[in-house]
């Protein structure tokens, strides 16, 4: 950070109380299979997967039940053996609770062997594989980014290879308060993570891997250092504790000093960022042929009776996970999927866990501390906290006046929705809500504009077609008229000739 920026207050981010312990220190508990699993077809960024099973069909654990469709998508596998009872709509793990398509599996307890059908074949020496083959196998295993965004990992690996990425950044920041699933994973599974990192290095062709871990996780740092000791190309880098350090752009800047250009991919700055959980999933997929069907999820919050990390199958209901984790002490003021700062509030607990679910937070009223907003006093706390260098108060002022284009012109597209601004706002203005609203309105306007364009084009095409038809008709009519005229002229000439002939004949007769 330059001296000017330091002096004039460009010190991004916030320092919320992390609430990671005691959940982070409790050993992982493995959740038994619930009776039913609800596996949504859209668990990743991009197009939903296409179901490959029929209702009533028996599936084995790890069997592929949905195929990727389109350029950006991911395969989905059965988290447990059982019978597909329905392929239909269930409430989405989203604040709206709107219906999404999901495969419902009645678990019958028959554990089939790993890697049946759907997953990639196990492999003892991944480094002998072609990098492109690693990407294919990762896609086969349905691995997506485990940090929350759930971008299909195979695509990231292959595009990194094409872009010639130099540095692989592994995100062990876990800057979100309350969450400790990555911390727990690094403590317990450091060798597998490092193995996955090395496989990803091979797949991307990057020279080195930098693992950024916030300094509030000394046990994870020690375990990862130990695991990476033998590998010179994997470096463990403790980083300052500051939210949102785990954001792709901020992490890349902190670790490499490179700034990802606005509107571009990290690969344009020569880096690619993967989560530690993704590294573990890649190692599992390549070494053992195991598809991504379960994950570590942190159950935490003041209303949770026994905070800790749970290894839960994808598709398990939040209610089941909470019940297994010890239940709730009190009615939660808010139930959150994801982290405190960026997670989504859930409409109820009957929504399933997905591949990108890092935490379930049952927050008490005291933790949420709801209060009605006051007017903005331009204190600029939000501007100081914004990690993107935006002026949230100015954007909010435009949005409050329904000037969404004005907000877009002031960096709405650069906003990463980290929530720092709303977290520090002394007037409690729900700034993230403002920005989400404006984005929605802009998207709707864009859709309306596209529709209008399409309509206009169709209308133009129609009038052009009608004009052409009319012209053709007129031409045809003219042609016919000309033909008729010619015919008439010919007939007339013939008649005249005839008349002349008959005249002649009469003359002859007369004569």
């Amino acid at each position: 950070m330059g001296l000017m920026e330091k002096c004039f207050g460009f010190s991004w981010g916030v320092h919320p109380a992390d609430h990671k312990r005691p959940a982070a220190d409790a050993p992982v508990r493995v959740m038994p299979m619930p009776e039913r699993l609800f596996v949504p077809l859209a668990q990743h960024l991009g197009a939903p997967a296409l179901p490959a099973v029929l209702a009533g069909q028996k599936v084995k654990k790890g069997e592929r039940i949905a195929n990727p469709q389109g350029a950006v998508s991911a395969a989905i596998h059965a988290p447990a053996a059982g019978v597909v009872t329905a392929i239909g709509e269930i409430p989405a793990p989203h604040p709206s609770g709107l219906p999404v398509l999901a495969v419902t599996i009645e678990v019958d307890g028959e554990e089939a062997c790993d890697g049946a059908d759907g997953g990639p074949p196990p492999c003892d020496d991944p480094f002998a594989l072609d990098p492109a083959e690693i990407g294919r196998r990762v896609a086969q295993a349905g691995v997506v980014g485990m940090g929350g965004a759930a971008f299909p990992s195979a695509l990231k690996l292959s595009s990194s290879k094409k872009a010639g990425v130099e540095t692989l950044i592994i995100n062990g920041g876990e800057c979100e308060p309350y969450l400790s699933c990555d911390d727990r994973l690094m403590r317990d599974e450091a060798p597998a993570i490092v193995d996955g990192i090395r496989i990803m290095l091979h797949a991307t062709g990057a020279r080195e891997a930098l693992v950024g871990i916030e300094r509030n996780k000394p046990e994870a740092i020690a375990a990862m250092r130990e695991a990476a000791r033998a590998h010179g190309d994997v470096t463990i880098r403790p980083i300052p504790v500051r939210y949102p350090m785990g954001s792709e752009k901020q992490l890349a800047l902190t670790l490499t000093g490179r700034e990802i250009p606005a509107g571009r991919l990290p690969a344009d700055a020569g880096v690619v960022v993967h989560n530690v959980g993704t590294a573990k999933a890649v190692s599992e997929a390549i070494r053992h042929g195991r598809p991504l069907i379960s994950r570590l999820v942190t159950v935490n919050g003041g209303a949770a009776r026994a905070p800790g990390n749970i290894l839960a199958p994808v598709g398990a209901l939040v209610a089941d996970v909470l019940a297994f984790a010890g239940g709730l002490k009190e009615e939660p003021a808010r139930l959150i999927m994801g982290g405190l700062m960026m997670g989504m509030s859930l409409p109820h607990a009957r929504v399933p866990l997905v591949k990108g679910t890092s935490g379930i937070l049952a927050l008490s009223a005291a933790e949420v501390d709801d209060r009605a907003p006051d007017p903005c006093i331009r204190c600029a706390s939000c501007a100081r906290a914004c990690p993107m260098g935006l002026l949230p108060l100015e954007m909010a002022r435009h949005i409050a006046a329904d000037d969404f284009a004005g907000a877009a012109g002031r960096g709405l597209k650069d906003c990463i929705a980290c929530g720092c601004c709303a977290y520090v706002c002394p007037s409690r203005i729900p700034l993230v809500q403002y920005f989400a609203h404006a984005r929605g309105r802009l998207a709707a306007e864009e859709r309306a504009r596209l529709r209008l364009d399409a309509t206009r084009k169709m209308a133009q095409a129609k009038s052009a077609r009608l004009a052409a038809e009319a012209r053709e008709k007129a031409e045809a009519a003219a042609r016919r008229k000309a033909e008729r005229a010619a015919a008439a002229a010919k007939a007339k000439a013939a008649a005249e000739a005839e008349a002349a002939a008959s005249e002649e004949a009469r003359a002859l007769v007369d004569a």
Partner: protein
Amino acid sequence: MNPIAYQAGRTYASPHAHGGGKGARAMFFVQLALAPATLFGFWLYGWPAFFLWLVTILSALFFEFTCLRLMGNKTPGRVLCDGSALLTGWLLAMTLPPWAPWWIGFIGAFIAIVIGKQVFGGLGQNVFNPAMAARVALLISFPLQLTTWVAPLPLAAPPSPGWLESLHIALGQAAPPDAMTSASLLGYARSELARGADLLQAFAAGQAAPRISWLGVRAGSLGESSAPLLALGGLFLLASGVIRWHAPAGMLAGVLVPAFIAHAAAPGAYLDAQAHLLSGALLLGAFFIATDYVTTPITGAGRFIFGLGAGIMTWIIRSLGGYPEGVAFAILFMNALTPLIDRCTRPRVFGRTRAGEALEAGASSGESA
């Protein structure tokens, strides 16, 4: 509790927790920082000063309440609790001559709250600092009352007016006796310069010439008498993070640097830096007025420019203009420039150049590395 039973009443946007800061806290801290200088002022100028202070604050609260009711606010009490109207009244009282009659405070509060703030839409919407707008309006409308200063008469001193007498003064029924009035240092310098005198001789010769007093035992408003206590309050605000250093530093530099240079060049025509620092509510302006959130720029750079501009304007008005003091005018002038300064001092957006274009792919930014 059964997790199945949970039903959210509504959807909530992230983040799902808050850092805990409150706007009212900042207002309270500013009031706390003003308290020592205010109490010292009461001691120095006696009960009339207290009465004027009280009337101004109560009037400010009254007008705020009335406006909120007129605008259909259902919970005016809650808004009053944010402390902003109280602070505006307090700051205005700090800039008035301590023995001014009550209606000065009343009218001032009306101008500050109704015309300076609520007409613009209430808290956070006003363009000009309400207290400064009121002070300037009063100064132009009632020049006599606004320039009648009393010599310090500590509360315990024998000639200090008693309770009842003070009430008479505050009610405007008794003017301060001539023997007690005194010119402020800036006013004296201005009138001496106006009649063509040399400042050095004027201050050296005249028995009546006001003296600089670091302690503040001299004529002036509550907000200018005690420089050390005002500075103390300002440092407290800096330390507690309520204000930041940019605007005060800019404003002090804006006054002191030109004052130092001009005095060094022509000591007979320009006051020295020390006189500027201790006079005319410069410290009040730098720490309490130029740091007002609502009417000043939002970035550190912008605030520094704001302070610097206000400081330079203050010095220009004091030294070259028609009024003896210029803090209020300078602040209002810079308030008007605030949107422009904000526009010119936007921070660089991550991944973009200062002009707002996306950075070149592959180039790493040295600026933030």
